[in-house]
């Protein structure tokens, strides 16, 4: 089992799932779209989540504090501060 942590629009939640060791990033994103739409992730239910919501997101595969596999699906963080293009002018 692995814990998939999904961060979207400022909300972050865990989802437990069985994964094969070779599951691709694209598969992770596809699974995330389905479970977030379906309400399978407690605290992160977006029925109309766009199919491309996670296209530019990053998948990190790490070990948790208890040794469990943790997968983080998260926005890119290239900045020391957010990008101007997203800011109100």
């Amino acid at each position, binding site marked *: 089992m692995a814990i998939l*942590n999904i*961060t979207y*629009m*400022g*909300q*972050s*939640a865990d989802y437990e799932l069985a994964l094969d060791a070779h599951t691709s990033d694209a598969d992770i994103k596809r699974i995330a779209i389905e479970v977030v739409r379906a309400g399978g992730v407690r*605290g992160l239910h977006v029925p109309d989540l766009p199919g491309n919501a996670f296209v*530019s997101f*990053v998948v*990190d595969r*790490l*070990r*948790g*504090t208890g040794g469990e596999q*943790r997968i*983080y699906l*998260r*926005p*890119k*963080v*290239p*900045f*020391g*501060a*957010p*990008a*101007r*293009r*997203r*800011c*109100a*002018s």
Partner: protein
Amino acid sequence: MRIVMCGIGALGSTAVQLLRNVAAELRLVDFDRVESKNLAAQWFVKQSLHKNKAEAARLQLANFYGAKAEALGVRLAATNAAQLLAGCDLAVDCFDNADSRITLSQAATTAGVPLLHAAISADGTFGLVRWDERFTADREDAPGQPTCEGGEHLPMIGLVGATLARAIQDFVASGARHDYLVSMSGVMRTS
């Protein structure tokens, strides 16, 4: 203990003010200058306008809190990174671009200096504080993509900056290397 803070912009300046009582010497590195647009999103005051950011932060620490720091107003590059890290026990990456993060990571690895990264997402909804051994620098969507100075994400900058300061504090106190994920749901320790 000596800590080198690389990048004294939104996250770097916010963390620096929260490290004013840390049990370590601070070395502040940034080549840039304070512009009026920075006042909305960074820990700088009007009296610091046009000063080098590292020097401005040093002066604010001294004038507001009587805290000492060393300021180096230079751009970190492969050619001077070893010199900037010399004598430091911890390096902190608050840069705003992948190239600088990678240059610092390579230099810290070579020098054997532990390195802690902090970064925030473009929409200001998410941040990371992560040690170098588990960090990969994300690329900007476009090279040289500018950063926000509007200030609408200041609370999130504060949250990520405070988390970074706490991670540094824990390292100074006990050598602990905790990673954190910061969202509007809260701050989650991830290692």
